[in-house]
């Protein structure tokens, strides 16, 4: 009798019926850097296209979602998609050079081949928001994921009520997407920009972002709260202040959304690095409503 146990191949067996299951875990789409636009001293906007046409066409995402970008041998890290979901065929990532992967990426040229996994994560509720007023608050790099939502709102401008964007940065030279502000404003968007430290040319307001926000909250009065969705993106310290303030102003917690940043390795709820308790930022997030956040210890 042959007592040798058979080798089970999970690709054929039930667990991973679809090749794409594994695909989403370890399958990386080969992608090419189509264009690189320097934005500030440390951020560049990368236009990236999946090489295989079939996969490229099937790739779709929602604002707020992210992809894992891989440079073989260098590393892999999560980046929010910054472009509009309506624009098929490519994604735009705005990436700050902070270390290993991002540093190497900054030296890569047009045409270089990288890898993309995803899209992963939850999204901003742009659909649910239709018919309501929208308040978008971004601090620093927080504008990057927010831009995808902004573009979605612009492309369907008539479906939304009033749209406010409050954007704060440390200095004027760190402002991102400056070339688009004009265009955004044309779509009847109330865009307020504030910097902490002005330079000689800066004419706008200075101080923390909460300053403008306070004004806007006061301006809007009771009417502001009931019918408003808010999305807040930025550094962890900002969440506490801004979300606390907006809650006080009456915006319901379940209508306020934030995008959290954690270290991620898998994007698939397996590596635990993004865990808050047992809540995976990559699966249940990165976009959470504020009520969920309140229930997570050490989330912000």
């Amino acid at each position: 009798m042959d007592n040798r146990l058979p080798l089970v191949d999970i690709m054929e067996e039930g667990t991973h019926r679809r090749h794409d299951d594994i695909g989403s875990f370890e399958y990386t789409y080969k992608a090419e850097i189509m264009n690189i636009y320097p934005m500030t001293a440390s951020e560049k906007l990368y236009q990236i296209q999946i090489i295989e046409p079939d996969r490229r066409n099937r790739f779709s995402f929602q604002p707020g979602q992210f992809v894992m970008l891989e440079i073989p041998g260098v590393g892999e890290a999560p980046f929010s998609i910054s472009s509009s979901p309506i624009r098929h065929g490519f994604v735009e990532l705005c990436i700050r050079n902070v270390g290993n992967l991002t540093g190497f990426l900054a030296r890569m040229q047009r045409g270089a081949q990288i890898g993309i996994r995803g899209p992963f994560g939850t999204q901003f509720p742009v659909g649910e928001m239709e018919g309501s007023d929208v308040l978008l608050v971004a601090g620093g790099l927080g504008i990057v994921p927010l831009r995808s939502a902004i573009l979605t709102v612009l492309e369907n401008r008539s479906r939304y009520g009033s749209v406010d964007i409050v954007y704060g940065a440390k200095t004027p030279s760190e402002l991102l997407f400056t070339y688009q502000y004009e265009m955004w404003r044309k779509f009847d968007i109330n865009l307020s920009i504030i910097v902490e430290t002005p330079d000689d040319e800066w004419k706008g307001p200075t101080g923390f972002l909460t300053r403008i926000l306070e004004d806007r909250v006061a301006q809007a009065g009771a009417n502001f709260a009931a019918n408003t969705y808010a999305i807040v993106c930025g550094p962890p310290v900002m969440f506490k202040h801004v979300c606390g303030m907006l809650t006080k102003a009456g915006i319901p917690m379940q209508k306020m959304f934030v995008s959290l940043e954690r270290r991620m390795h898998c994007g698939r709820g397996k590596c635990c690095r993004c865990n808050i308790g047992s809540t995976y930022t990559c699966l249940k997030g990165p976009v959470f409503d504020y009520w969920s956040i309140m229930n997570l210890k050490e989330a912000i």
Partner: protein
Amino acid sequence: MTQERTYLGVPLHKPKVAFFELSSCEGCQLQIVNNEATLLDFLSLVEIVNFREAMTERSNDYEIAFVEGSVTRADEITRLTEIRRNAAVLVALGSCACFGGVNQLKNRFHDIAWVKKEVYGKHPVETEAEAKPLEAFVRVDLKIFGCPIKKEEVEKIVTNVALGRPVQHPKFPVCMECKANENICLFDLGEPCLGPVTRAGCDSWCPNSRMGCWGCRGPADDANVEQLRNIAKKHGISAEAMLDRLECFGGFASHVDEIRGKAKAKKTASAAKGGVNPPSSPLGKGRRR
């Protein structure tokens, strides 16, 4: 191999590197030569322009200087300063360069005259009062820990340098690697080990051989040395045995100072200077030489 190599379109930088040694056993440099299996790949990543232990040619045109050893004599300060001037990147190679290494063990006497006499009798020798790490004199851009350095680590670092990637050391302690290697914990064997407080990266080299860690790579980030000493005590390991290890390579110098300071405070004023007192009358009267 004149044509420039690239990695995914990013040019591979082939830096001119030089090796120097101050007071040391030259073992760390030897570890580089010990790269037998990968020596050729190694040589294709860097251009060695100065390596006294292995080659005659020398040049002052280099970008990366690997400096082994600690500073123990005035002329070494001059040499080191000059190397610093020439090099864009100065790498401290090994524990001597990073922390003073075993050489700094003489510092604990705080009495260089006695130290000199112990070894050379009346014969005059020139030396600094204390053996010090490079950092005491010049800016150090990168540290490669270990006594000796681990060649795999050097290879990884050199590859990263060629790729222009930042070099990151593990922040966690040796126990992580030790467990992954499925070793029996030295404390279960009743032996001292500094693994819980020492920076990993050596792949628990010593515990793999059932030799407790001596802390040659210095403290891990947020090392809980105080607690480890309590633990050792509970395991019946003498405070002295732990201290021997903590002070062996100099990485834990500040912890040792603190421990000795406390011990001294307890003992009141009997010890005039901090640290260990040299024996008042060396046994066997007079020098034998």
